[in-house]
């Protein structure tokens, strides 16, 4: 048998079934491509419709809750709701220790009061300084002041005290 005898028979055997005409329109890859394109289109459509539905639902909820169709009213309502919902500011940490009863018993308020007094001390010291001459003039017989005057303050008061100079009155 010649060499091409086998190839002829092979050709006849392989070409005996007639395959469907290769039209790309009916090919599986074309259908897959169409399905994919349809899917992507429907995905965008789904996103669009869900967005529109959300917007419509928001409009309905806002208009029913505010009783108005005015978007400005909705905005005010939304702002006020958000302000109401905002949590109140937490108490400062300095006030919480004073509220505990254990520290009140320990006498912590006292140093605070002392501290306040210490801050205010300059004012009382200045006031007695300005007022000291008045009691000396009015209440001279007080012994305590006389003793103090004999001490350190003798020099201060000596120059300004007219008491010894008042002795010429009997002379008048």
């Amino acid at each position: 048998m010649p060499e091409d005898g086998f190839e002829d028979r092979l050709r006849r055997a392989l070409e005996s079934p007639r395959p469907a005409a290769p039209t790309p329109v009916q090919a599986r890859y074309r259908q897959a491509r169409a399905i994919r394109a349809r899917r992507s289109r429907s995905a965008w459509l789904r996103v669009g419709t869900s967005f529109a539905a959300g917007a419509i639902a928001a409009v309905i909820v806002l208009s029913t809750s505010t009783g108005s169709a005015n978007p400005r009213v909705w905005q005010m309502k939304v702002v006020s709701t958000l302000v109401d919902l905002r949590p109140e500011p937490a108490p400062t940490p300095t006030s919480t220790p004073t509220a505990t009863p254990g520290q009140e018993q320990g006498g912590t308020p006292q140093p605070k009061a002392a501290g306040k007094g210490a801050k205010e001390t300059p004012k009382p010291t200045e006031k007695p300084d300005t007022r000291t001459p008045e009691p000396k003039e009015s209440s001279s017989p007080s012994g305590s002041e006389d003793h103090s005057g004999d001490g350190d303050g003798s020099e201060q008061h000596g120059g300004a005290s007219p008491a010894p100079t008042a002795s010429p009155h009997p002379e008048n």
Partner: protein
Amino acid sequence: MTEEPYRPGNLDDFDRLYRESYPRLFRTLFGVLGDAAAAEDCVQECFLKAFLAWPKWRPDAPAEAWLHRIALNLAHSHRRRERLREAGEVVRRLGRPKPEPDPVEVVEGADLVAALRKLPPDLATAMVLRHYHGYSNRELGYVLGISERTIGSRLARARLKLRTELGPDWGSLPTSGPADVDSYVSSEVGDA
């Protein structure tokens, strides 16, 4: 006649490739699978896979050889599945006579197709690509994923097995090619 080169990713070119390669791919797979419906299914699946990879295709090998590679991988998987299914059917049919083949399904050269089907898929593929499509060693090496040097021995093994399957009625099989069947047979016999 000048053939326009295919451009990767171009849809019109892929359609053209489909029209030009579909019948040849179908016949290769029919030779390997021995079933027209299965061959058509595999070819369609092959074009689907190729279409997905089309933008990345590089024209370093003929497009049809690339398609053949995909199609034959699919055909091999199909045959593996088919063998498992057949084993299940044999177990189910145990004791009953095998049904006669439908006369409508008997086609011209059915015995040759049946003999090809009995070959291992890579041997049947080598026979069809060389003796039906006229593929060169290089193209065969690309499609089968083997070196050009091994193609000769593979073809010789295929011819030997085919001769065993077909019997003396088919006479001598083609002996042309880098490794001729008679020298292969003698070397096999000599080794034995």
